[in-house]
């Protein structure tokens, strides 16, 4: 589902990622870890084509990411759900509208949008917050809304960049449980985190980045 081969990326002559190769299979849930500045975020940005590699090839959900033209990038991203540490919810739109936005982009019928959004709000347990505005929700609730927005269009891949970075342990557990549920329904999930607690004891594949390279791969 996600394949990187010999990917190198540098900014202003400073190499951030060097000769990275790995494959995430369809339906897998995997982690990328490493200290701050190890290149985790850059790796995700390369996958959703916010950056281009200097060398190497990237394939995501059947797309040759490197060869994508600007106008085709949106169509790659419609196959991806993206979750950020800082949520990136729109404060002037209700929870419902924030999630619905992902479907409006697809040109979906308003009635269908309503059904899908309420369904996904049920999944994350926040149906009663549909008409609230994000700033009135707790951090944990906001992250669950972000997850809901990321999965409402049923993407084949879910990418998460430090998804629990701003959450307390209880909310972290809730969010991680949701990731597992989403993965159990067949979505490929790739989580970048420096929190060892997230993957230890999960039995999932963990890719360790250090000093711009893949240091090792093991199971958490």
């Amino acid at each position: 589902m996600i394949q990187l081969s010999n990917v190198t990326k540098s900014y202003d002559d400073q190499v951030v990622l060097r000769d990275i190769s790995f494959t995430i299979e369809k339906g897998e849930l995997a982690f990328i870890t490493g200290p701050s500045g190890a290149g985790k975020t850059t790796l995700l940005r390369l996958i959703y084509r916010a950056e281009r590699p200097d060398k190497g090839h990237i394939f995501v959900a059947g797309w040759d990411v490197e060869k994508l033209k600007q106008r085709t990038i949106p169509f790659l991203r419609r196959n991806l759900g993206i979750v950020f540490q800082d949520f990136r919810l729109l404060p002037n739109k209700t929870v419902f509208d924030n999630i619905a936005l992902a479907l409006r982009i697809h040109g979906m019928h308003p009635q269908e949008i309503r059904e899908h959004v309420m369904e996904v709000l049920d999944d994350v347990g926040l149906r009663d917050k549909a008409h609230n505005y994000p700033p009135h929700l707790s951090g944990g609730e906001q992250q669950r809304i972000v997850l809901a927005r990321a999965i409402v269009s049923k993407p084949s891949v879910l990418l998460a960049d430090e998804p629990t970075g701003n959450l307390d342990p209880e909310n972290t557990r809730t969010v991680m449980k949701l990731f597992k549920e989403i993965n159990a329904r067949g979505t490929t999930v790739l989580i970048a985190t420096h929190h060892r607690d997230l993957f230890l004891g999960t039995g999932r594949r963990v890719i360790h980045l250090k000093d711009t390279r893949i240091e090792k791969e093991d199971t958490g």
Partner: protein
Amino acid sequence: MRTFIYSLQTAFKNLWQEKWINLLTLLSISVSLLLLSAYLIVTLNIDSILKKWSRGFGIVVYLNEDLSDAEIETLRGILQDDPDILKIRYVSKEEALKELEETLGQDAPILAQLNENPLPASFELRLKEDIPDPSFVEKKASEIRQIPGVEDVEYGEKWLSSLNTISQGMKVIAIFLGSAIFVAIIFITYSTIKILFYRRIDEVETLKLLGATRTFIRLPYLIEGLFIGLSGGIVSSLILFGIEYFFTVKLIEFIPSIRGIIMDIPLRAYTLIPATGAVMSFIGSIFATGRIRY
């Protein structure tokens, strides 16, 4: 279609959310368009007055004394074949004297002292163009002067030259002012939409990550710009209509002599002003939203 409806809803929501900056932009556009329209109308009115004055303009071709009727007819034929000449009037020696007598009025008996009629026969020519270019008339006059049987050619050089300078000058100013105002409208909308676009840059970034196409992202802003320009134009048209009403209905009651000078504003102009505003603002919005890169 659903995308368009959603963009329309978003555009009007945004217009309302940022109503003061949008209102200010709308008023700036309407004042700019009003200035341009007012100037164009004044120019058109002056042009129509100039054309009325210039209707008396003509070239007078004086003929040699000893021309036979056949030679005069040949000359008329040559002039008639000239594509630049609209009308020819032959004034015989006798008619010229009669016209002079009429002009002199009470002093006409002075002419009785003359033993013979000193006035030459002539052709009075009207050119096709109302306010022709002076150099063109000069060339035409010297061409006619070369025709055998022509004694001299006269026309109001200075008068024509002044009329032409005024008319050309106003046209140049109209083009300059028009271009300046077009650029100004584009720039006014550009600045507003740019501010609004950057105020919502987080939203734009989120939309990009969710897989929104460029059209989906830009459309609300383009609609916003189009609406502001169109509304500015409509306001401008309404004010202009008020001014025209004042001049043609109210002022004419007090100063009836302006009736011949004031020209009615064609209905097309009232639709053209909002259309101009809309197009210019739309162009400004296109520049403002720029090239979206993912």
